[in-house]
């Protein structure tokens, strides 16, 4: 009997390791997540902007990166650059155009694992009414239980670059850089 039970548990363990792990679903925790960008200003400095209102869901499996899913929606009206007249300009029709394009969306389409903690996500970024692929370099910082609220959480850092001209934002090119560097820090809570 003991031998039979031991055999069964061994078979179960083998089956578990052979089948792909089940992806866990997470929602972005806005209070511990940040989406920023930097852009060159006349070669002197990088201007920093951030979006304070965004949401998204992540379906993540550390053992099976390709089966992951990612959907993020950013409210363009939440843009801040620490200077109100510039924010007004950036939210206006010439730049992000928050009236006509109130949301920026990013949908992950390809997830590639490099090692245990790093990988790339390629997705479709829709910005200013234009959809183009953008690849992000992702670091999986930590996956585990948050000691404070006891909720399973996952933390990611992502970096990437896009050209604003690809999305039809060409005003003041030359004076204001074309390359926009993205800095994304995400903490996500596992859905119960």
């Amino acid at each position: 009997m003991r031998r039979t039970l031991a055999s069964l548990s061994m078979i179960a363990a083998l089956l578990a390791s052979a089948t792909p792990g089940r992806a866990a679903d997470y929602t972005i925790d806005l209070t511990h997540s940040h989406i920023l960008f930097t852009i060159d200003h006349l070669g002197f400095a990088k201007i920093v902007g951030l979006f304070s209102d965004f949401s998204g869901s992540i379906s993540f499996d550390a053992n099976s990166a390709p089966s992951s899913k990612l959907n993020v929606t950013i409210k363009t009206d939440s843009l801040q650059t620490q200077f109100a007249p510039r924010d007004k300009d950036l939210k206006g029709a010439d730049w992000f155009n928050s009236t006509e394009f109130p949301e920026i969306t990013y949908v992950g389409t390809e997830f590639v694992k490099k090692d245990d903690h790093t990988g790339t996500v390629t997705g479709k970024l829709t910005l200013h009414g234009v959809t183009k692929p953008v690849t992000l370099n992702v670091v999986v910082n930590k996956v585990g239980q948050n000691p404070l609220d006891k909720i399973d959480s996952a933390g990611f850092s992502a970096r990437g670059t896009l050209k604003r001209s690809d999305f039809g934002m060409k005003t003041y090119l030359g004076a204001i850089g074309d390359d926009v560097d993205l800095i994304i820090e995400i903490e996500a809570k596992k859905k119960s």
Partner: protein
Amino acid sequence: MLENPIVSAALICFLLGLALAGLVRVVPSSTIASTPVPIIFLASYVLAYQQVPPFPPVGATNKIFYVALAAALIGFALDLLPQVANYRKPLAVIMPLFIVGWIGLPRFAKLDVDLIATSLGLWLGGIVLLWRLDTVATTPAERNGGSIVGTAMLMALLLAFAPIALLGGSSTSLMLCLAAVAGLAAVAVWELVAPRGAFGASAVFGFGCGLLAMIDTVTLITRQVDLAALALLLLIPYAGEVCARFLLPPNRFRGRVRQVLIGTFAASPIVLVMAVLLLRHPEPLS
């Protein structure tokens, strides 16, 4: 100084204006003679937005270009076919309505009293502007009309709208306005040196509708414009005529001197616009 994108755009437009206004003087066609004015608007747009926008346009700023282009072509057809000249005034009524409708379309899903009032104001203001511009264009110089007065009126409108646009969240419109002013200045210089007297429907509708599309975009889409200052733009089409009646007796000032003075008077409301903006927007911009 040329590293400043606004200065370089203005310089390019000025040189373009000089070249185009010079070239049309070797062509006998009066229809062709009006074309530098709308071309300057389109060139200013391309320099400010650094692109010929995609078609179909994506967003209101792209629409500005195609409104100006379509209106210029319609105006060109009106100049080419005198038998349809009667359509000029009806077009001055219909085109501002079309521009408000097309630019403001994304907002009309949620109508409110403010939006209706603003849209109505933009339409009526657009009619006043185009109607008066067309009247000036078709009135002889000796009766306070003509190409110099029309060009000066457009320059005054651009100079008055530039600071409104800047404070209204569109520094690109400021750039477009200043580049276009420089281009029109070149046309005005040619007109003073070698008068051609051409300010046809392509100039009136091409430039006028482009200007209206830009104003409607900043007002309805960027939504930060100072409406009180914007309303003062309506003084510009009449300022030259009114000042001329009171200050320029016909027997004292004649010819180009009179036209230049009327054009200068047309710019007088700019002072009022600046005063209103400074009083209502004391916050720093730099």
